[in-house]
């Protein structure tokens, strides 16, 4: 038991099983759409968790990167005549570059200052998207051209389910790989104490920046997927509330737990769907569940369950 729980690659394999099983179990394509949205959100949250759970840096602006990936995939084909695949990839790379440029100065901030700085980043991106109507269509958003990979037209729930699911598995393997490398150990040292890590000769700024860029790239990829999957993108994609939702997913699932990120995303994507039968009480109940879960499992769902299981096994 202990060994399975400790294996860094276990979550990715667990998810792989789920990804294969879900299509066999669900009664309608609607559930595949939900699952796809879970994968897309989880992709962002896995990246964010590297930043928050391992490097100990908060971000209230990850929806900005999410939106940059989304809008790059939309704007390239619509305004620049680029193929969708090329715009998507260019958008992801560009977001990484922006994260590098922005991260250098703002990662000098700590705690609530970093929260406000990243919040500012989110606000700025969201305002640009809303106002540059000629490029983005403004608040009503813009259509997104279909994605072609060679002669494969990636459209419809069935296709995107697999694309998002497999990408998420790869991303989780990537995260696990990073964490079991020396970089991962350096990150944990930074999380425990930046000063101590610095004394040990760890280049704190460089590692923080590295994780920030990786998490931005994860977010941009997810954003691109959402835009291409929906075929339409609006500025809500990059709003402050979306950023806060990502953070809530990461904390709910458990900071420092890759599997927790997926679970946190799943809970907050599926819950609103499950609560529609409560009509106007939907939001109150959502808030109440979020509170109760956090109070009961205050280290996040997965870490709390893990320690409970380990206690049971020991």
């Amino acid at each position, binding site marked *: 038991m202990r060994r399975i729980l400790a294996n860094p690659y276990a979550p990715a394999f667990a998810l792989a099983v789920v990804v294969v099983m879900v299509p066999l179990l669900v009664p309608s394509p*609607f559930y595949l759409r939900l699952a796809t*949205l879970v994968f897309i959100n989880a992709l962002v949250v896995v990246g964010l968790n590297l930043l928050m759970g391992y490097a100990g840096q908060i971000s209230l602006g990850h929806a900005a990167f999410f939106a940059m990936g989304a809008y790059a995939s939309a704007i390239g084909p619509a305004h620049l005549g680029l193929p969708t695949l090329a715009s998507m990839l260019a958008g992801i790379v560009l977001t990484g570059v922006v994260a590098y440029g922005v991260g250098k100065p703002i990662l000098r901030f700590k705690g609530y200052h970093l929260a406000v700085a990243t919040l500012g980043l989110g606000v700025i991106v969201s305002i640009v998207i809303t106002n540059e109507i000629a490029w983005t269509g403004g608040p*009503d958003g813009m259509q997104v051209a279909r994605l072609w990979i060679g002669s494969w037209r990636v459209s419809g729930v069935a296709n995107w389910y697999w694309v998002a699911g497999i990408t998420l598995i790869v991303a989780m393997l990537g995260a696990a790989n990073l964490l079991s490398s020396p970089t991962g150990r350096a990150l944990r040292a930074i999380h425990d104490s930046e000063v101590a890590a610095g004394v040990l000769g760890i280049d704190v700024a460089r590692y923080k920046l590295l994780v920030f860029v990786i998490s931005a790239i994860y977010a941009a990829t997810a954003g691109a997927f959402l835009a291409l999957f929906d075929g339409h993108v609006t500025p809500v994609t990059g709003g402050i509330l979306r950023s806060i939702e990502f953070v809530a997913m990461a904390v709910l699932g458990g900071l420092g737990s890759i599997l927790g990120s997926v679970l946190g995303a799943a809970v907050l994507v599926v819950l609103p769907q499950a*609560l529609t039968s409560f009509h106007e009480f939907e939001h109150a109940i959502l808030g109440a*569940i979020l509170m109760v879960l956090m109070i009961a499992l205050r280290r996040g769902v997965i870490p709390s369950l893990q320690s409970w299981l380990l206690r049971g096994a020991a």
Partner: protein
Amino acid sequence: MKPIRALVCAVLMAPGLATAARSEILIGSVLSTTGPASFLGEPEKQTLEVYAKRINDAGGVNGEKIRLIIYDDGSDASNSRTFATRLVEQDQVVAVVGGTGTGNSLAMIPVFEEAGIPFVSLSGGVDIIDPVRKWVFKPPHTDRMACAKIFTDLKQRGLTNAAFIAGQGGYAKSMVTQCRSVAGQYGIKILAEESYGPRDSDMTAQLTRIKALPGLKAVINADIGQGPAIVTRNAAQINLGMPLYQSHGAATQGYLELAGPAAEGVRLPGPSLLVAEQLPDSDPQKKVLLDYTAVIEKATGKPVGTFGGYAHDGLLLLVDAMKRAGSADPAKVRDQLEKTKGYVATVGIITMSPTDHLGIDLSAFRMLEVKRGKWAVVD
């Protein structure tokens, strides 16, 4: 562990709740009853619920009861799309009326087009029905029509230099964009376009800047929610000194109450709904408008507004088409929607055709002016 178990139960139960009884006609709806567009979505939802009940109390449609399934997209277009999928795949509705914001409607359209389900949109954007899409119809006025109405009035009053002050939501931005595209046709020059954020509480800085423009004759405010009331008060506060126009987004009783005496003299293009009592008895719309007003005021205790009227028209257009089709079969209903002719609705008199899925013209709007705290017809 209790909350988790409850959660799992809730998730598993969700699909069970949505199964339809055989003798019901399922009509779906996705509205923005929370988020920035809730100002529009909430009256739409109330109207749909009140009228679905009335229709059923009167015996339903073709002998069957209708059942509404309404989802709240929280003003997020990606959520709209998820709920659209749910309506089609899970709930298996035969028709959809909804889509509060233009972006929300546009995100849902492909789902309904692919599934072959008639969709009556409640959003303002002209992009929804231009170009014409096979399964998509919309009763509301377009923003462009509101622009045309304002510009015609400006021209008649010789106020050809105007400036915009607008919010940053979909309604406001779409209106400004469409107004800009037709301003030239009416000989109107747009000298400036100022903007304010979603929850801004003071727009005097923007209005001061506008006021200083040389040669400016009128100011147009495009927005919904609390923005128009604050702009109106701020304009009075700094003594703007030129006519202020609002859009149909401010055509509600709430606007008059929030803006108070500052609204005196403000003009806007509004639906006949707001001035139903002042219409001559010969007006074909008068009865429909008064009926709708009476029904909603009795059921909700709240005054009627433009957006609730859209929902009324959307639902009744669908029901009318179902009755003429003699069935709720999506394809037949769609065909009959397209053959709607001379249907008296709150927005105007609707006549659809294969090349026109909007079906109303500029005469659906009236230029209104606030006089002594009430709406008065100017033309």
